[in-house]
């Protein structure tokens, strides 16, 4: 597990132990990666973060168009496991958890422990850093910097 923000590590470690999730990506709603577990290639993280953030954004827009408020979590359930995309508020920002899990756990368990992790992250967040604005022109360099730190390169 690697995290850009040290205060995320403890809640994420606990979540991984409790939920038996295989892959985890914590990111901002703009797709900036905060922490990851299980990914071995930075390219994968980049693609998954971009796609995950896009799915949450489109789902939110769909909810807005349908006047349905918030649609909450997005779950893709497959034969051998599933993917949970779970946005949660952190201060005035929205963070997103992307969790890939197998048959050794269940959607219910992953959701229950995800709620606990989100609560712990909210309690641990210092506030100022999580509220940092990432400007569009800074996005790519910020992403490169994040990936280098996440993969130790």
């Amino acid at each position, binding site marked *: 597990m690697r995290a850009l923000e040290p205060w995320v590590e403890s809640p994420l470690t606990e979540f991984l132990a409790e939920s038996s999730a295989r892959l985890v990506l914590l990111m901002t709603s703009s797709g900036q990666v905060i922490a990851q577990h299980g990914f071995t290639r930075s390219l994968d993280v980049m693609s998954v973060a971009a796609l995950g953030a896009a799915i949450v954004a489109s789902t939110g827009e769909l909810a807005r168009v349908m006047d349905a408020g918030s649609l909450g979590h997005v779950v893709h*359930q497959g034969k051998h496991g599933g993917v949970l995309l779970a946005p949660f508020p952190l201060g005035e920002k929205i963070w997103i958890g992307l969790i890939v899990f197998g048959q050794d*756990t*269940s*959607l*219910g*368990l992953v*959701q*229950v422990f995800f*709620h606990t992790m989100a609560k712990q992250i909210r309690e641990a967040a210092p506030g100022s850093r999580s509220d940092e604005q990432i400007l569009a022109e800074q996005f790519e360099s910020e992403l490169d910097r994040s990936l280098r730190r996440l993969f130790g390169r």
Partner: protein
Amino acid sequence: MSNRYDAVVAAITRVGGVRSACVVDAIDGIVVAESSMVGTDPAPLAALAASLTRKLDGLLSVAGHGPPRVIHLEAELGHLMLKPVSPELLVVAVTDTETNLGLLRLALTDAAERLE
């Protein structure tokens, strides 16, 4: 569709001392129908009950006893009774210490038959 499940849950909660009753998707560990007293969160109950049932199923299989019919846990402040309906469905009841356990077991068996 959900009325069938709600009716089953309502029948279980009519047994004295039942604080929470749920029909649970045993594979995903999520709530299908529930009736709980204030302060009992059915989501963790469903998730952990499904996980426990899966693990006990494995244990009983190793012991050569086949799948569990009823799982009963007695704790200091109450009881937890689980009745697998099928590989996909599970009925769960959380009670206080004063519940008539025989009556509860009959209610869970009846619930399982109605859901089969």
